[in-house]
């Protein structure tokens, strides 16, 4: 978790020391840009690339040749620089996520450039999944739009906790401070309602390059805050070093008789030789003997490191297992709650068996939709049928074997998953774990719940009643044969 400043505005601190020229002292900051069509997103990204000198001369020349036109400031039409694919260029729309790279002396940046149009929720979700920060664009003349709320909602849902509001086209509103104050106030309210407290609003003109990389010269004397690039340089990258140790095992390396190492990328916490770990789902305990990397045998590894772990005893570990710290292990079970974004035209169907991949673990799952997010209002509406493409839903996940997760809130690596359609093998949803459900299909052993076994027709009648509909969220329904139910119940007895 990033340290969140207590006050919503005081997120920008003076930077102590510039990084050494030869090495950047920070990980690349990943960000996503969101805006409605014509807010100036292409112009802004183009401006960032241009002013940080990421556009090379020959690319600019190709651009000038292809566009044949320049804007009034003699700069090329940046949108052409960004739209990489011919088909899109012909149609004049951007339809997918493109990645852009630029850097300052202090830090490098990876921008996921996603289209603003509403039906492309899926692209935004894709771009946001890896982002540390979201830049939301607003046209100073129009203020916040419903579209801005949608984008902010998706960004927050995907776990982004730092927003920059780029109030663009300020040159067209006479650099009026009152307009900025109003929009930034509205935005702060919006962000807070989504649980995002790190918010910076910046008045700018992407076209003229004011407050993007260079401060505006005299046009906005009332603005004392950072330029966009300063805000980005100071943003934090996500770190999952605080929770318990997590190593999803990608490979078991056995190059010779004597060596057996478990290879993977540390997905949380830290580890050192001598630490005790558990292997999930088996629960076997062992101690860490060595952390092997190509360079040196290391005395510690932290989140993000790609390592090979050697344990002190022969244990059974396979790809898809997770090696974790003994204190603060993740949740294991066969039932979880999650939020998902449906990514493909077929949507996500209730009861269908999908593949779920999380970390290196792939297993079978069925999905029961519970509710759907109405993006215009930010409200969750009951919804138990197919989640259509671009829908964001709350769902119950039922696994056939033990699954291992943290909540996405706690760990973005071990709380995230994708769903794969078993027929097309395409990626059909991205999802985030919100909680564990009690095992065995929703029988809450400790809670005030009963398990009823009803004839299907009677169940249907009850489910059609108003009282039932109002509390649909609290109910878990499984259609089982008598044999399955018997097995289920006998298991319950054993676990009790």
């Amino acid at each position, binding site marked *: 978790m990033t340290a969140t400043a207590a006050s919503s505005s005081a997120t920008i601190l003076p930077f102590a020391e510039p990084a050494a020229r030869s090495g950047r002292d920070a990980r690349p900051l990943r960000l996503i840009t969101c805006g409605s069509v014509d807010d100036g997103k292409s112009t802004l990204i183009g401006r960032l690339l241009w002013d940080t000198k990421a556009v090379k001369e020959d690319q600019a020349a190709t651009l000038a040749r292809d566009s044949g036109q320049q804007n009034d400031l003699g700069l090329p039409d940046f949108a052409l620089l960004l739209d990489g694919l*011919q088909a899109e260029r012909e149609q004049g729309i951007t339809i997918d996520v493109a*990645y852009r790279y630029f850097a300052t002396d202090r830090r*490098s940046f990876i921008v996921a450039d996603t289209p603003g149009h509403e039906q492309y929720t899926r692209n935004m979700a894709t771009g946001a999944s890896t982002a540390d920060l979201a830049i939301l664009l607003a046209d100073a003349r129009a203020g916040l739009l419903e579209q801005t709320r949608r984008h902010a909602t998706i960004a927050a849902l995907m776990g982004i906790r730092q927003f920059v509001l780029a109030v663009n086209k300020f040159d067209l509103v006479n650099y009026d401070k009152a307009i900025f104050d109003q929009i930034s106030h509205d935005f702060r309210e919006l962000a807070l309602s989504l649980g995002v407290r790190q918010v910076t609003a910046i008045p700018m003109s992407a076209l003229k390059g004011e407050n993007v990389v260079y401060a505006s010269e005299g046009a906005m004397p009332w603005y004392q805050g950072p330029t966009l690039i300063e805000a980005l340089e100071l943003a934090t990258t996500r770190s999952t070093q605080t929770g318990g140790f997590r190593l999803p095992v990608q490979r078991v390396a056995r190059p010779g008789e004597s060596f057996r190492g478990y*290879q993977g990328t540390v997905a949380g916490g830290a580890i050192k030789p001598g630490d005790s770990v558990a292997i999930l789902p088996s629960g076997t305990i062992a101690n860490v003997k060595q952390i092997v990397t190509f360079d040196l045998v290391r005395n510690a590894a932290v989140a993000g490191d790609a390592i090979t772990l050697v344990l002190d005893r022969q244990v059974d570990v396979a790809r898809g297992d997770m090696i974790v710290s003994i204190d603060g292990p993740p949740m294991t079970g066969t039932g979880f709650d999650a939020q998902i974004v449906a990514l493909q035209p077929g949507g996500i169907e209730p009861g269908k068996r999908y593949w779920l991949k999380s970390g290196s673990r792939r297993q079978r799952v069925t999905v029961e939709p519970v509710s759907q997010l109405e993006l215009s209002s930010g409200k969750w509406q009951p919804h138990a049928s197919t989640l259509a493409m671009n829908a964001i839903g709350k769902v119950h996940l039922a696994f056939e074997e033990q699954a291992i997760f943290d909540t996405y809130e706690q760990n973005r*690596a071990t709380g*995230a998953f994708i769903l*794969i359609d078993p027929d097309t093998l395409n990626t059909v949803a991205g999802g985030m774990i919100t909680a564990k459900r009690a095992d065995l299909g929703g029988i809450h052993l400790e809670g005030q719940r009963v398990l009823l076994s009803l004839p299907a027709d009677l169940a249907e009648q009850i489910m059609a009643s108003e009282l039932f509909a109002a509390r649909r969220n609290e109910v878990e329904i499984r259609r089982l044969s008598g044999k399955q139910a018997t097995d289920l119940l006998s298991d319950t007895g054993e676990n009790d």
Partner: protein
Amino acid sequence: MPLSAQETEIKNPPVSKPPLDPHLKALENEAIHIFREVAAEFEKPVMLYSIGKDSSVLLHLARKAFYPGRVPFPLLHVDTTWKFKEMIEFRDEIAEKYDLDLVVHTNPRGKAEGITPFTHGSAFYTDIMKTEALKQALDAGGYDAAFGGARRDEEASRAKERIYSFRTPDHKWDPRNQRPELWNVYNGMIKKGESVRAFPLSNWTEVDIWRYIQAEDIPLVPLYYAAERPYVERDGMMILAEDPRLQLLPGETVQHGSIRFRTLGCFPLTGAIRSTASNLEEVIAELEIATVSERQGRAIDRDQSGSMEKKKREGYF
């Protein structure tokens, strides 16, 4: 099971290098993660090895990813027979030194039909000797995953490329219909005949590549460093003039000057730049003030700006 091979590796560099800066470390970690994931999920991966700087970085990362084991898949070099001589020497040395399985493939049509970059034009030649040759080699090997060193910052059509780039059984890439890729959870499920190209260097920029080569002391083909070399000016490019197959056209003369190459490919299609940067430090210094992107020296990109995308759809790497 060459035990001796890993033991040489274990003894390899006990000299501690200064740790990578967090930026390069993050890129390295990501690449290693991708290597391991592909190696675990696919039945028969292969690494496309073009001998250039990006391939050299890719190979170095592969060695790191699987250490202390050896690289668990072969390297494939599509040899057009028109590569720089120094490239081929370097390739063979590296394969020997690191105990790699090297597969070299040349499209037999080149010889049979006398297809050369001089006689057939760069577009046709590239199509046959690179694109078609690559497909032949991938089909022959039955590879279901191929690592490549492409970077998204290289060219506009690559900005939307996935890390796992899905290919149909006839190696086609459909930019309109790519799988969404969220977090670092890659979907490695494919049907028989389909394959993926995996790009561990997707998020690297040219400067990152050079800084990593420096930090990790990765050997490169010497052509990347400036030296006095003979060249001929043709179509606005400086072409290395040492291969006897290069015939001077009327009016052309062999000149000498301090030149180097920013990318390496087939010598008749790869232009040199004037430079005095004869070592890594100087190359990086030159790069940091450079205003011309690295693909500029390549004839293949210049016909029209959509040309790379067209080639990719057809199966060019």
